[in-house]
């Protein structure tokens, strides 16, 4: 600009990508070897008999009896009479020896939509009920907002 003949020095620097790629490759190998792909969780339950502390007013609760043919029978306790009348004594027939989970979700959706105070369910499986069916029933209850679950021993 002012007639100087000095050339400007380059200020750009190059990042050594080869070392960076090596580092990333080692990281990927380590993580691939040590990552746990199956995520194990837990379903927390209480013992339905003898597990609750005695309190003044009993909380509304739903009793679910699982039949060995997959039939589910419901009994609503300590709830207002109009809800007991509507939802109190219901049954959902099993499908191919398993509980009808779609129908169960529909039933619980209607129940919790009408009566949101219900937060406890006690499940009583049959002697030969598979563990998987019990867990799936619990899962449907939790999905419909009923969080406090218990199982009764035989």
């Amino acid at each position, binding site marked *: 600009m002012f007639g100087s003949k000095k050339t400007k020095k380059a200020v750009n620097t190059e990042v050594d990508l080869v070392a960076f790629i090596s580092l990333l490759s080692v990281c990927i190998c380590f993580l691939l070897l040590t*990552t746990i792909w199956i995520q194990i969780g837990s*379903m927390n339950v209480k013992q339905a008999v003898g597990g609750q502390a005695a309190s003044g007013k009993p909380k509304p609760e739903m009793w679910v009896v699982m039949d060995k043919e997959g039939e589910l029978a419901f009994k609503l306790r300590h709830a207002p009479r109009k809800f007991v009348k509507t939802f109190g004594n219901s049954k959902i027939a099993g499908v191919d020896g398993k509980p009808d989970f779609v129908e169960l979700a529909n039933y619980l959706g209607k129940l919790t939509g009408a009566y949101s105070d219900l937060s406890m369910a006690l499940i009583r499986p049959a002697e030969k009920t598979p563990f998987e069916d019990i867990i799936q029933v619990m899962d449907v209850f939790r999905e419909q907002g009923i969080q406090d679950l218990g199982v009764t021993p035989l």
Partner: protein
Amino acid sequence: MFNRPLGQAGLASGAGFGVKGKGKRNLAATVMLTSLVDTFSVLVIYLLVNFSTTGELLYMSEGMELPAAAKAIELERNVVVKVEKDKLYIEEEEIPTTQLVKRLLDVKQNWEKYYPDTEFTGAMTIQADRRQAYDLLSHVIQAGGHAGYSDINFAVIRK
């Protein structure tokens, strides 16, 4: 000689086959390092997100399939009672069905010895195959109740 990428090599023009009057074309391809680094970075981030720091809490036997659940919570370290092929195990040690309450009581009383640096919370994890019938699970739940383990956790696979 190797300064130009393959795209400019001009194989179709006959370069490299003795055609006079034209210089030798470059056949070396340059690797796109930037996109490679990007891919590696995404992979590392994905694997880091999935990386579990809690460690392996359960030992899965061959052929055992846990039931799946969407509303599962994180598994915590406590006493694991495994039900496998109608046999009971506490931390991989086979226990006769009739001795379960006694063994659970022993674990509770000597908690510091079995699980140092942790406190007894009354929690117990039951690990069973998804096809397991409830009768034996009921026995484990009852035994846990008798021994003071009122908080029952069923091990499941998160959906």
